[in-house]
């Protein structure tokens, strides 16, 4: 059952990713990314991290993707022209991508992590629930938590400065 779910979600994630890269219309790309994010949430659930999965669906597939959809609608989702500015780009890029995949796989699988090839240790029932994550965030990782809140504030101010009306002058 777990294997079936894993392969279904992995196929969904791969299909979404390939859709983002291959579809010419940016709006369809956004929709493909939503499929990808939902599949990843299923994978997170299989890895016993319920809170990250919930945040993935609510924050990512919900809020962030709505932002993308709005900007695509505002800018106008025109399809890309098909000319090739760098000769051979369309052949070279998949080659480089494949090389990167092989390299990353070798780097990770060749590392001497003891848990490779196992399913990981047995975990307690509450592994990855909001209680545990919240405790970690507010005790051990309090400083990164506050720093990320400042980062969010800066990003919001920056976006207003970048895209605001005054920038037109």
């Amino acid at each position, binding site marked *: 059952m*777990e294997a079936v779910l*894993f392969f279904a979600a*992995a196929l969904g*994630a*791969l299909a979404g*990713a*390939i859709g*983002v*890269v291959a579809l010419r219309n940016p709006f369809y*790309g*956004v929709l493909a990314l939503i499929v990808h994010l939902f599949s990843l949430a299923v*994978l*997170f659930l*299989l*890895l016993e*991290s319920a*809170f*990250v999965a919930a*945040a*993935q669906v609510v*924050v*990512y597939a919900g809020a*962030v993707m709505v*932002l*993308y959809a709005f*900007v695509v609608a*505002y*800018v106008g989702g025109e399809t*890309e022209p098909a000319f090739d*500015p760098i000769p051979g*780009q369309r052949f070279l*890029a998949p080659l*480089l*991508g494949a090389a*990167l*995949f092989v390299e990353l*796989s070798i780097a*990770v*699988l060749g590392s001497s992590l003891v848990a490779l090839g*196992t*399913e*990981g*240790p047995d*975990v307690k029932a509450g*592994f*990855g629930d909001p209680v545990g*994550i919240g405790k*970690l965030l507010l005790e*051990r*990782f309090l400083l990164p938590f506050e720093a*990320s809140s400042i*980062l*969010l504030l*800066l*990003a919001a101010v*920056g*976006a207003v400065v*970048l*895209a605001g009306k005054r*920038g037109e002058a």
Partner: protein
Amino acid sequence: MNVEWYVVLSSLLFAIGAMGILVRRSPIVILLCLELMLNAGNLALVAFSRMVGNQQGQVFAIVVMVVAACEVVVGLGLIVALFRRKLPLDVDALRELRG
């Protein structure tokens, strides 16, 4: 399922995202491909967290989500600013800073 499967899937997704950044020219799609790469990293972090059996990797993944949200906001702000100045939304046409 072995944890290896998740890690290999994550590196495959990362490679697809990197390939997309190399191939595409619309800045919006390049941001979408960046999201693909960040999420591949998240998948690896959560898989490693499961492998080790403690939750700290999941906190990392949440922080990565925060950073991704910031990146999206600033990137989309830049795209809207480009659009308002009637500049072409094509990273190959925007080459003034390229020396």
